[in-house]
């Protein structure tokens, strides 16, 4: 019984919940904004890079592969710090929100490029040949025959990766982006209690569970009829 109340006191203190609810909600709003922006630009950029790679121009592809490998290998936190503290020395001053958005978009783009590229490669050669033999150009074949199939195949890995990367919006806290974790840690240091952090954790769950469910829905929805 004693542990029970100590636990509630440590993580679910009612007056703190009331006091910091607005701040956490503000953080939720910021997290949603960044996440939405990152998902959109990251996936679009990843798809664009995979399409460019399909043209198999050697020198361009070397650059794409180097980019994808570097941004998949580096911890996003390192990139966030590097860009945030490095760019001002070049005279480029970006708001911390923009830094987080750009870095996470690039990371997501790097992963998505590899996934979309694998999807494009997985489409049988016969599909290309059938389309080209009816007079479709390379670009038309890619657009109407290969990509629609490749994109469908890649929905599950893209969804997983997107969720993994958007969770990194929490890294914004180290450069002062007022997202969920930033609001929660600020509140924690003022109150000396972990309740705001628990509120942040719950907020992440509430935010991302629907995304996971939506991913599953898209996955079944996008699958074409198979035997």
């Amino acid at each position, binding site marked *: 019984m004693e542990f029970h109340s100590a636990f509630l006191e440590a993580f679910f203190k009612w007056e703190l919940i009331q006091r910091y609810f607005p701040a956490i909600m503000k953080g939720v709003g910021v997290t949603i904004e960044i996440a939405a922006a990152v998902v959109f630009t990251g996936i679009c950029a990843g798809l664009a890079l995979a399409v460019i790679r399909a043209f198999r121009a050697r020198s361009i592809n070397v650059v794409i592969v180097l980019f994808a490998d570097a941004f998949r290998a580096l911890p996003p936190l390192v990139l966030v710090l590097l860009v945030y503290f490095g760019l001002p020395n070049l005279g480029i001053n970006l708001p911390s929100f923009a830094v987080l958005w750009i870095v996470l978009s690039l990371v997501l783009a790097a992963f998505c490029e590899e996934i979309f590229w694998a999807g494009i490669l997985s489409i049988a050669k016969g599909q290309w*040949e059938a389309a080209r033999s*009816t*007079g479709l150009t390379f670009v038309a074949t890619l657009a109407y025959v290969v990509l629609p199939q490749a994109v469908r195949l890649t929905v599950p890995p893209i969804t997983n990766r997107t969720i993994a990367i958007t969770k990194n919006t929490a890294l914004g806290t180290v450069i002062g982006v007022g997202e969920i974790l930033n609001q929660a840690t600020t509140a924690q240091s003022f109150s000396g209690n972990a309740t705001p952090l628990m509120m942040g954790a719950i907020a992440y769950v509430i935010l991302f569970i629907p995304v996971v469910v939506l991913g599953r829905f898209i996955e079944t929805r996008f699958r074409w009829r198979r035997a």
Partner: protein
Amino acid sequence: MRLNGVVSATPPILEIRGLRKSFHHVEVLRGIDLSVAPQELVFIIGPSGSGKSTLLRCCNRLEEPTGGSIRIDGVDIMARSTDINAMRRRIGMVFQSFNLYPHMTALGNVALALVKVLRRPRKEAERVALAALDRVGLSEKAAAYPAELSGGQQQRVAIARALALEPKLMLFDEPTSALDPELVGSVLNVMRELKRGGMTMLVVSHEMRFARDAADRVIFLDHGAIVEEGPPEQIFSQPERTRTRAFIADIAR
């Protein structure tokens, strides 16, 4: 080489001269000369690895020849000035593995090139596509996806996809090899129907019975060269060359 009687009067649809094709250092085609006259059905037979499929695939440049020339309806398809995409829509191709687009209905498969290559309005393209499906006896399957069709039906849709573009020449690359035996007949019947309609066809296949009753000419290919050619009765019953005889005996088993 023997000049074929059918060829003499009208200019050939397909005229291959000295065609060579190497993959790395392996020469797969070693100087092929072949003419196909309008409305002719030419059958290519030969052991596996003899270059049959490569020969066919050079005709629409799915494989790039390494030497020689190919003219389709008088146009040199190897020439720099030739728009190969424009030529390809006049050369229908049917593959062993059907290669239908799995994300599109039968109608969508047939209509795609009509819309995206010939720039027909969607409505008109679908009308033409439906007519093509009707020619292969599958208009009632227009809304079905490839996965919902049998192998024979899929191959007939693939034939309709090529037919819809009104090709001058149809290339068949082992069209029945991937089919269950009971489904072969439906595809061969469609090919017979095409022949009756005056389609010019170049066929790589192991369907010898079909070759006997439908082909105008049979070409026996071995090691990348034409060993013997002639009307089916001659090739199948009285082949002149030992290699042809051995091959015919092998497949007759």
